[in-house]
């Protein structure tokens, strides 16, 4: 950001975080860099949750099938 001054010779550019007092610039930079991987986090997390749900449902269905077979007995 260009910072104005009464003196033309003192016109300088400041980074925006200089306007914020007590700001941890290193942490903000690390957080900003991590944002580019956010889409990967979402994709991996949702794929993992979906696969876990598939595994769970696969065994739940088998359990329900066996339960039904056990309760049905031998009659046809």
């Amino acid at each position: 950001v260009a910072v104005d001054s009464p003196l033309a010779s003192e016109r300088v550019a400041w980074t925006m975080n200089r306007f914020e007092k007590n700001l941890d610039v290193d942490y903000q930079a690390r957080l900003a860099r991590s944002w580019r991987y956010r889409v990967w986090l979402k994709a991996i997390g949702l794929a993992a949750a979906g696969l876990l749900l598939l595994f769970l449902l696969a065994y739940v269905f088998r359990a329900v099938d066996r339960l039904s077979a056990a309760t049905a007995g031998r009659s046809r």
Partner: protein
Amino acid sequence: VSYPTAVTILFLAALAIVAADLVLRLVLRAGKPTRAQGAPREGAKSANPSVFRWLRVAVNAIGLVSLFLVASTALSRLLTDERTLTGDRLIWHVGTAPAFALAAVAIVLFWAHRNRFSAADWSRLTSAGTWAIPLRKLFFWIAVVLAIPTMASILAAMFPLFDTDGQQDLARIHRYCGPLLAAAGLLFAYFALVTWRERSQD
């Protein structure tokens, strides 16, 4: 009960289960063989090639380490005065979460078939010293059931699908399911180690 107290009680209960199992095992070992007569046992030898065995060991190790990293980064805030997980701990938590998610899928792939419940599990559970296998299965499926809302809730909160209250509810689901998942995962790891040790001693 506040959230830090509830989480502390949860992990103390998990530790109490481990301690009770260790004490009972020591008592049973002093008195009689650990395997009760007539109690059914799991197959002692695996027919898998050695490459799968080493892959399974690697997956288990990576899963345990990633679970420890994810849980410790999240629960470390309980040791501080902060009310929310922020700063570098949040970055570490979010950074290790995909590794844990992938490891969780791999662990379920390797363990789900072995952890099917069978009719023999009830007799194992009621026989002296053989309860590790049914408890391993129980905590495995509890962890699988808890892993899904733990992951899905916090990821759903990252999409513009819910209002502020909804996002806070999703974060609350993540905060409560997460410690339960960690406790169930640790107990599954403990009983898996116990059954592996029993099998290697046979």
